[in-house]
């Protein structure tokens, strides 16, 4: 059933008609906000049922048209999804912060899991979320095993000018973000921690603008079980002090087919940063960095020594950016970054970087190659008889180099 919020209005202009519609709705109903502006009650509208909340489109910030839902104060959310929650769908709305109030804890949509309850099958579509002091949308599960935010779909949404992240996800499983825009948010565009998440075809533009210093990047994967960014654009990431487009801090991730342009050829911006910033957190890796296109980026890829098993394949750079990888022990990194510079194709190409370490790998198969930093030798494993490995187990052998010519007398 469709419940039109206008049908619940009374002669009292202060009456919360939307609250009455939400109270009257049953699981599966649609609560419809016709075009116009609505202000949430203090503490936000509480979503305690499986509902679809829809408007007449988000319109544009500061312009008439569409459905605009406003927080009552800078400290309040617009919507609170109350766990346990399933099948909530919020679509075709503009969510905007209030300008009054001194505190700064406001969000557009908040769902916080508890030790006993989370949320599942949450969809957001066609939203414009702007100007909240905290995060635009904040979906935080309780832990990896309890109170999860399970199965999140975010499509065609725009997150603009929020104080922290446009979209903040924590302990969210199976999160899918597609065709979204994250612009001018203070801490970062999308922040995800301990999630399994895929981000497709989205634009990150000029985030991390917090004057006190943004702790995150335009896109942050922190200790994610699995994370993927594909066919995304990162623009204007030389803003503020953080100057990072994509940060992978612990966990496993893949970044590929992305376009990076910091917007400042003389800046110090980083494209993809792979690290483990906190001792004790999960190691970063494996991390896969497939082909990406860079412009105006000083450090295209920066992998620190706490990262294991990183694969880097061909990249393209319009400028003269660098790739920084651990040396000499690269913790299993392999690849050929092929940093190709426009108009000078072959001069900046690389060879194949072999996985290196001070000892030979513990697991070996015939034909496996490694670089032993202690022996300063390329090592190949050969000689294992697959039919009789006990007799002929094989061994690591050094590939011979042509002797250097003797020094001139």
């Amino acid at each position, binding site marked *: 059933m469709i419940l039109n919020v206008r049908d619940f209005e009374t002669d009292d202009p202060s009456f919360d008609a939307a609250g009455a519609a939400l109270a009257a709705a049953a699981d599966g109903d649609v609560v419809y906000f016709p*075009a116009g502006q609505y202000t949430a009650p203090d503490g936000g509208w509480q979503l305690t049922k499986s509902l679809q909340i829809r408007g*007449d*489109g988000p*319109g*544009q910030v500061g*312009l*008439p*048209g*569409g*459905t605009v839902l406003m927080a009552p104060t800078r400290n309040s959310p617009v919507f609170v999804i109350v766990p346990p929650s399933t099948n909530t769908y919020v679509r*075709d709305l503009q969510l905007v912060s209030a300008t009054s109030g001194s505190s700064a804890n406001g969000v557009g949509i908040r769902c916080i899991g508890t030790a006993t309850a989370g949320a599942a099958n949450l969809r957001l579509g*066609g939203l414009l979320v702007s100007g909240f002091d905290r995060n635009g949308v904040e979906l935080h599960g309780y832990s990896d095993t309890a109170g999860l935010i399970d199965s999140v779909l975010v*499509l*065609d949404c*725009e997150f603009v000018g929020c104080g922290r992240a446009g979209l903040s996800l924590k302990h969210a499983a199976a999160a899918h973000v*597609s*065709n979204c*825009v994250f612009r001018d948010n203070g801490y970062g565009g999308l922040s995800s921690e301990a999630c399994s998440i895929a981000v*497709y*075809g989205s*634009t990150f533009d000029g985030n991390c603008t917090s004057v006190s210093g943004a702790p995150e990047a335009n896109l942050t994967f922190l200790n994610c079980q699995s994370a993927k960014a*594909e*066919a995304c*654009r990162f623009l204007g990431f030389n803003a503020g002090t953080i100057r990072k487009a994509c940060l992978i801090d612990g966990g496993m991730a893949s970044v*590929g*087919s992305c*376009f990076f342009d910091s917007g400042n050829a003389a800046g110090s911006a980083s494209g993809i940063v792979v690290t483990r910033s906190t001792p004790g957190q999960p190691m970063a890796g494996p991390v896969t960095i*497939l*082909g*990406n*296109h860079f412009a105006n980026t000083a450090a295209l890829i920066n992998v620190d020594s706490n990262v294991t098993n990183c694969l880097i*394949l*061909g990249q*393209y750079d319009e400028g003269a950016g660098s*790739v920084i990888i651990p040396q000499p022990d*690269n913790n299993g990194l392999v*690849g*050929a970054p*092929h*940093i*190709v510079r*426009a108009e000078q*194709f*072959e*001069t*900046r*190409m*690389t*060879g*194949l*970087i*072999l996985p290196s370490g001070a000892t030979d790998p513990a697991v070996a198969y015939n034909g496996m190659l490694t*670089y032993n930093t202690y022996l300063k*030798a*390329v090592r190949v494993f050969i000689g294992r008889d697959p039919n009789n490995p006990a007799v002929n187990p094989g061994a690591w052998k050094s*590939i*011979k*180099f*042509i002797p*250097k010519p003797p020094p001139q007398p």
Partner: protein
Amino acid sequence: MLLNVLDFTDDSGQASLALALETARDGDRIYLPSSQVYVAPPTGWLITRGVEIFGDGPDFNAGGTFLKGSGGGDGRLLVIRPSPGSTMGPVYIHDLRLEHAQHGIECDIAEGTTLKSLRLARLVVWHMGEAPGYPGCGLLLDAGDGTIERIATFACLTQLNKQYGIKLRNVGQAELMAGGGGTNGVGYVWGGGSCVRVCVSYAQGDAFDTGADGQIHLDSCGIAHVEAFHFEDIRAKAPVFPWEPAFGCRFDQCRGAAFFGSNYVSFDSTDSGPSIIGFYVPAADGPVTLFPNDFGNINGEYLLRLGGEAPGYSILPQYSGTVGLRGEVAMPSTPNYGLLGIPSVRDPAAEINARSGFALPALLDAPMNPVEGMIYCGLDGVLRVWTENGWRSVSVTPSSP
């Protein structure tokens, strides 16, 4: 606000989408019930605000909503034209069938004007551009001198259009998903100067007419990503262009963020031979990443043809599903300009030994940024390793007599 187009009638008493569009404000939804065929005025219906336009689905025989161009197919249909100098959107068009005009949906965006977001879903767009002298596309999404920030299409079928099913130019970000093309004359998708991701879609028998291009052709795209796509019936070029190869997918000047993988490429059973290519990159492009793809109905075609001087291919094994009828893989020879990977083709019957070893980068010059353990092959055929701050040549065992 929801506007039912039947509530807007013109002087002749016909339901008028033009009047509904004039009345609508940003955010309004315009509903076209399936009770009649809607015929556009010769200049088309102008969309000048961020509205949603929708019908009862694209299937006319099952109660769908049907929009048609005027006259003999030389008129216009849906024209997105923001006010000059404005920022407009989002526009959402869905659940319609569009037919017999020059283009199904086109953009007319002036300099300094922005279309923020265009979403298209569950459309059937066919028989566009058939009128003599008015060739057209199913969806002509060209930013012109203005800006289109993003486009998403979902479950849109473009078929039997004279030129391309979908033509994109200078679109900030385009995602084409779960759609299909069929027998579009010039090709299914052409993308130029855009960031494009095409996935989980199919094309069949496109690019057969005069001026035929290919099923997907991405040119000078910041992002060119084709994944989980089904190419069917890649046809030979029309006789007027016999010197040009036919192809399923082609990348030109798409560098770095260029990916082709997890696709199924089925060649046509009648058109065959080396002038037909599954995936084609001309010379002087790259880097391009190729993940495994599955090729079927092969009869002497090129599965992959990679330009000889294109730097930095990364390639993983491919699969051939046709027993005994081998397709070719054209790879750069030495120097391979940084190619890396395993360019093998797995033949299920193992009749042909198309396995390969692991290809190392073979370069004209030594890499400029060596690190410990880096290995490459020089133009002189010598394998070199960077160790102890220098390149060392690898010694090989002499050949047996």
